């Protein structure tokens, strides 16, 4: 056996919807499609060299997060209104969610990603940490600071 990695199509079948949901939360509907393509192409390029296949979803979401950060950098870190919340949203945001997601879009990248992963995808802290490439404690802190800031903004 040269490799024990599953066929890449399996990753697409199982995680494409999740990745799109994360990206819609992070960069809005318009930017999400570009970021989605960049995410899967980057993943496809790197895939044969991937050493650890224990959390393929976390790996993809990490890449998606980087592409979202690139997207925001390219747009000069302007806050991006988010018209649509992730399709797989588990935790329904406030009824008046436009304002909330507008505020989420204005958070610093790490806090924004943490909040999006937590509330749009309902990921536990450990997986948020995986996706952000930081410790669970740091993920918890980003999430906490993000929420604190949102409370202040929206009060």
């Amino acid at each position: 056996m040269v490799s024990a990695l599953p066929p890449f199509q399996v990753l697409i079948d199982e995680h494409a919807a999740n990745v799109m949901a994360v990206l819609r939360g992070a960069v809005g509907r318009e930017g999400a499609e570009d970021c989605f393509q960049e995410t899967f192409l980057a993943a496809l390029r790197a895939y044969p060299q991937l050493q650890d296949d224990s959390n393929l979803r976390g790996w993809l979401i990490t890449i998606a997060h980087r592409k979202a950060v690139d997207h925001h950098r390219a747009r000069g870190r302007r806050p991006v209104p988010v018209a649509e919340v992730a399709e797989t949203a588990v935790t329904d945001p406030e009824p008046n969610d436009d304002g909330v997601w507008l505020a989420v879009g204005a958070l610093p990248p790490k806090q924004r990603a943490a909040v999006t992963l937590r509330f749009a995808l309902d990921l536990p802290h450990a997986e948020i940490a995986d996706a952000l490439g930081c410790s669970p404690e740091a993920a918890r802190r980003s999430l906490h600071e993000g929420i604190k800031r949102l409370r202040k903004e929206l009060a």
Partner: protein
Amino acid sequence: MNINASLERVRERAAAEGLLDVAYASTDSPFGPLLLAKTPMGLVRLGLPNQDADELLVELAAKISPRVLEAPAALDEERRELDLYFDRKLDSFDLPLDWSLSDGFRLRVLHQIATIPYGETRTYTEMARGAGNERAVRAAGTACGRNPIPLVVPCHRVLRSGGALGGYGGGLPMKRGLLTLEGVLDESPPG
């Protein structure tokens, strides 16, 4: 643009960038669905209806590359020729093949098989002889049984010396059906 349109763009860009190591698609046949898999070199694997498609893709990921993507458009010509073949409108495939799943004696046997014309048959002994070892009849049979590209490499045209059908990876009814389609066997079901 929905998620499928985005995925279609990913496939197009992957192909343009040379990242489509294994493209696959399924196609219908009178015997059931076939799985076709292709590398940039050509058709590398054809899964018969009785073979598990998921297992086959896992095997390709391990043996060739994990960059295995469903990409029907990449296999348009293969599907077109197979459709014509099953309609009796094509008696010789003109498709690039990737032989990399076979080597040694088995590969030589498969090369022999590839030269058997439509509507004709040969014996396992003839295949063994043509591959350079007339006594390796059993090994020639194994090579037929492990043919990664059946139909296109027509191992269904190889029979036992006495005229008995021998074996077939897709099951004997399919072998009988293919030989009937090609006019080797009579239309009437065997008694």
